[in-house]
């Protein structure tokens, strides 16, 4: 199937459900070992207890914000690759810190299709929610449908 045919199968309103992810000291360690980000924000509960960040106390370690980014990326690429889409852009904002024991789930929704002179583009709205249904991260993404991968 060519890019045009793949593109036509994508519908505005399509929803991509990500897999739930539960934050533990092991997942934080793994993310630190993957990212090389060993900021004590994520590893030192004693420091986090006594440190108030200009008035914001977190009461314990928090998940790396970029773990959200990686889970959103996984959600998008796992959906796009078999559909012939290429993940082009991701913009994120962190809304709320994620703590040990929280379970977060990303969701992407196709909000618009934009064919341009040179490409076939799809816009997504992104939200990551915790187990209470509260948003912890939001964002936008862009995918391109192409016959070849940029080399």
């Amino acid at each position, binding site marked *: 199937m060519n890019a045009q045919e793949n593109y036509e199968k994508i519908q505005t309103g399509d929803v991509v459900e990500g897999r739930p992810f539960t934050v533990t000291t092991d997942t934080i360690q793994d993310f630190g070992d993957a990212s090389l980000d060993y900021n004590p924000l994520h590893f030192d509960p004693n420091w986090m207890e006594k440190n108030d960040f200009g008035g914001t106390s977190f009461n314990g370690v928090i998940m790396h914000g970029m773990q959200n980014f*990686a889970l959103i990326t996984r959600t998008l690429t796992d959906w796009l*690759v078999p559909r012939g889409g290429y993940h082009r*852009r991701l*913009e*994120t904002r962190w809304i709320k810190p994620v703590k040990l024991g929280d379970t977060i789930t990303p969701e992407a929704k196709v909000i618009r299709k934009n064919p341009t002179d040179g490409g076939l583009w799809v816009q997504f709205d992104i939200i990551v929610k915790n187990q209470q249904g509260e948003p912890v991260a939001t964002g936008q993404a862009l995918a391109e449908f192409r016959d070849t991968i940029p080399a």
Partner: protein
Amino acid sequence: MNVMGENFETDFWKEVNDRATWDMIVPGELRETRPVTLTKQIIQDFARKVGEDNPLYFDEDYAKSTPYGGIVAPPSIHILLMFACTTSKDWMRSPGTINAGQNWYYNAPIRPDDTITMRGTALDKFIKKDRLFAVHENLFTNQHGQVVCTGRGQTIRPV
């Protein structure tokens, strides 16, 4: 063990006084960086540890059957590159640095054994309420001089 091996300094309190504070950050000045070669092992360790399990990153036969033509790195590998390509004196390692969000554009995929070079600056800095912010801007290129991805983000600087 981290994906780059035991030489990486994981204690971010060491050299804390050698890192630029918000006051010392000069927008536009280049950060010190070094090229990093991403072996298949590093790419796959990274992928596993951030929760990626797509066969595109692990199964050469599957990857060859896709338009990618072989194993690639997950697009989010810049999360690793931001620390792998900078030095232990880089201000992004200052304890208490809080990431506020990022945006990234992906040009070409990274493949095993690519050597990636980073160009990074603080593009801007500002104060909002009582918080000190820095805006960072990164450009990653491969050994062919081709842009692989570009990104921008904001961090709240520790006081």
